[in-house]
Structure formats: C-alpha cells, structure tokens
C-alpha cells in the first residue's frame, strides 16, 4: 500500500492542500496525506522508506 501511495509525491513536505491525494492503491477509506515520502514505516521486523524497496532501519 505505502509504496504505491508514496510513489507519486513530492520530495519535501508541502502545504496541506498539496499533501492530500486520493488513491486507489489500497482499500483504505482515508484520503492519504502523503507528507514527507522519506518518513519511515515498519513492517515485520524491518523498517524502511516506502517505495525504496530496501530495509533502512
């Protein structure tokens, strides 16, 4: 989910009106706030930057 959502965002945090984007990439009922694409998430035992394809932390 996160990879597809974050693939289309800018590289820096921007104004709210520019950080929200509807997505059909997941069954999420939310409007995703893309924010900073370098924000880390954890899945399983590894944490990473969504969309980079590799573990970072």
């Amino acid at each position, binding site marked *: 989910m996160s990879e597809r959502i974050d693939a289309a965002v800018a590289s820096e945090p921007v104004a709210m009106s520019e950080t929200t984007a509807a997505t059909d990439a*997941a*069954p999420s009922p939310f409007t995703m*706030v893309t924010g900073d694409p370098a924000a880390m*998430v*954890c899945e399983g035992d590894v*944490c990473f930057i969504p969309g980079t394809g590799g573990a970072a932390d």
Partner: protein
Amino acid sequence: MPRTAGNTASAASVRLIVTSPIKIDIWSDIACPWCYIGKRHLEGGIAALGADAPDVEIEYHSFELAPDTPVDFEGSEVDFLAKHKGLPADRVQQMLQHVTGVAANAGLDYDFDALQHTKTLKAHELLHFAKSQGLQLELSERLFRAYFTEGRHVGRVDELVELAAEVGLDADAAREALESGRYAAAVQADIAQAGAYGINGVPFFVFEGKYGVSGAQPAEVFSQVLTQVAGERDGAAA
C-alpha cells in the same frame, strides 16, 4: 462534528459553540522504533500550533509487527535481526545507529544494547485494559520508554504489571486482565481492522476517520493535518 447550543438568556445574539476533540486513531507497536518517534513528532506538531491547537482525543490500536517473535529471546537486537532474520550484522548496526540518531533528534535516548527483544502481544492486551481505565496514553508512553530506553522486558506479565502500576493502574486488575486474556480478542480486532483498511506498516495515523498518515512524518505534517481538519470543522459550523 461541532455541536452548538443556544444560550437561552440571549438566544438571538449569543451562541455557545462546543466542539468535540479531533479524533486521532494510531496503529502502532511497542517494538516499533519509528512509532515512538512518530508519537513525539505528533506531539510536536500539536505543540507547534500553540494556542491554536485543537483539542485532540488519541486512541492507540494494536499492530503486532512480528507475531513469530519469542517472548524470551536470548540475545541483542543485532543478534535477533542478524541471526533470526538473516540480515548482515554490519547492516543491522548501521540501521540501529541511524534510528538512534533520529530518535535523539526527537528527544529520545534509544539504547539498543540494553533492549530486550520480545513478543508484544501481552503489552497490547495491557494497552486495551489501560484504555478501559482511561490511562492508555500514559501506559503507551511508559511502555515505549521501558522498551527503547530502559531495557525493560515488556513481554512478561510480571514486568508489565509493574509498569501498569507505575502509571496508576491497579496492579491486581492488570494482572487479572493479562492472565485471563480478556483483551486478546480486542487486540486481534484492531489487527483485523488494520488489515481491512489496507494498513501494512506502522505507525499509521487516522484523523477524524478521514485522513490517513503513514509513517513517522515530521511534526509540521501533523500540524498541517490538524489545521486542515480544524478548518473544515469551522467551515461546517459556520
């Protein structure tokens, strides 16, 4: 949604506007280093709004990152990730150094040498018990600190009961809640809800059931979301 109530003494000119807090639902795991950092960033984002900060109601939801983790793992975090998961040890060291640095910037003193890797299922059950007692936020902070900075074992019932008592929960009631498994179904319900929402990773924040925020975003992103939600409420109330 904002609620309005007329002032009967001068109903034509005075309206008392009573606004409910903005709801923030957070899917998180105690063993997630970026969840604690994200918590601090959210708090920073709220604080940055100063007097304009809206009231918020925060609720934590369970997300078990690694259900296959043993309660008692004999070894360090590096050992776990290197041996149990097959990641190169030097790469693991780099990863932990990086997250430790980011945590420090958020005011958190991570100690991965002391950290005791464990299964967090019981900790999640305790968080649900704490929610029933109105102390979930206090316990969430206490569990994160215990795990990442104090090297406490948050997988064992005895240690969890001690931590529960430290935030004001009744120790006997906390022990009963954990030993009976009374909140196990609630934990699984949270995890199932995350799956239904397509949440694969944490931290994951939901504002007013409307905006989703994935990852340990900078404080300013949280400020922007809160400002947006508050503005939409104001617009709806006008």
